């Protein structure tokens, strides 16, 4: 049962952390719960479909269909999150002085909420199909009893959700003054981490050169598979021995987002007379 719980926990953790960040970043937006829940549901549905056609996907594109699919999913999430960061920045400067800060920020958040819901869905999709395959394997092999399966699965899910909740309520405690800077930084690093993961998948597919293997190796004192390592991996993209290309994608994404955000912040004050709906 513990073995099952551990694997379920590992698969659930990353999605749980991403859901927490999305929930906190869209705090105050109307119906965000509904959107995020919808994203989770859509992700689960997609996982089921993906699990059903996993074999065909694995054989596709000369055996690297799975890697290319994962890379695509990650890059879509990167796009959505970058869009969110940039749209949050759009009125950032006035907002800093504006007493109605929260209200304005919320409106902006509302616009990219759909994108964020999609990010949640894609996060669930990535981990969900593997989880379904794993659980399906257990059921079909009748390894261990049904109680083990339900107990282990439930426990793993619960623990993953718990870590997500701890992060959510921890972030919710941040004073409003720093709140938006902290959440936008979190989103920024999350985005960079996902881009680096996409790069890793493209290396696995042999579509990108690794540009050096193991640029550093910190697996000795903070293994990526340990709990803190996994949490850091999900949050800021920690990798214990990255390829060069992962570092390039990571820094490149940070730089690109930064440039886009600066461009938007400097160039386009909202048109006079134009009021947000």
């Amino acid at each position, binding site marked *: 049962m513990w*073995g099952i719980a551990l*694997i379920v926990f590992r698969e659930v953790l990353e999605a749980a952390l991403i859901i927490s960040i999305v929930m906190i970043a869209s705090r105050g937006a109307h119906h965000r719960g509904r959107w995020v829940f919808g994203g989770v549901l859509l992700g689960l549905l997609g996982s089921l479909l993906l699990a059903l*056609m*996993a*074999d*065909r996907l*694995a054989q*596709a*594109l*000369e*055996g*690297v*269909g*799975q*890697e*290319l*699919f994962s*890379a*695509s999913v990650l890059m879509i999430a990167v796009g959505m999150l970058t869009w969110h960061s940039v749209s949050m920045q759009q009125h950032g400067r006035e907002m800093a002085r504006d007493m109605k800060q929260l209200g304005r920020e919320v409106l902006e958040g509302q616009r990219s909420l759909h994108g964020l819901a999609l990010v949640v869905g894609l996060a669930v999709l990535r981990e969900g199909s*593997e989880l379904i*395959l*794993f659980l*399906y*394997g*257990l059921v*079909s*092999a009748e*390894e261990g009893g049904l109680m083990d399966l339900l107990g282990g699965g439930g426990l793993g899910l619960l623990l993953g959700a718990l870590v997500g909740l701890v992060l959510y309520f921890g972030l919710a405690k941040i004073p409003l003054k720093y709140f938006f800077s902290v959440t936008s930084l979190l989103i920024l690093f999350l985005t960079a981490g996902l881009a680096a993961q996409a790069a*890793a998948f*493209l290396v*696995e*597919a*042999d*579509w*990108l050169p690794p540009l050096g*293997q193991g640029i550093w190796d910190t*697996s000795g004192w903070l*293994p*990526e*598979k340990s709990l803190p390592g996994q949490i850091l991996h999900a949050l800021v993209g920690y990798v214990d*021995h990255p*390829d060069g290309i992962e570092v390039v994608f990571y820094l490149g994404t940070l730089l690109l987002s930064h440039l886009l955000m600066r461009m938007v912040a400097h160039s386009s004050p909202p048109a006079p007379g134009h009021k947000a709906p």
Partner: protein
Amino acid sequence: MSSLRFTLSFLFLALFGMPLLMAADGPTLVIRNHLFEPEEVMAPAGQKFKLVVRNEDATPEEFESKTLKREKVVQGHSEIVINLGPLVAGTYDFVGEFHEATAKGRLVVR
């Protein structure tokens, strides 16, 4: 499915249009009764190769290696190809994550 496949491959070729270097055929691993056969496979150092993992069990397995940086699900009665290398000489451990207690093996590169 095929149009999706086409779109995906087109997208990636357009984005990363670079020659796909052909890799040499590498060793084959067989999963049977949640064990890897053979437990130890060899591969040449300093060149690309493809590791084939064939799952003869009815249940899915996930090939996972921290040192090789690979994680890939292989369905029951199915096989996958894992692109590897060029690797430096050494021993790389791997497991079947869904049956980590029994499914262990290593890749010896030299």
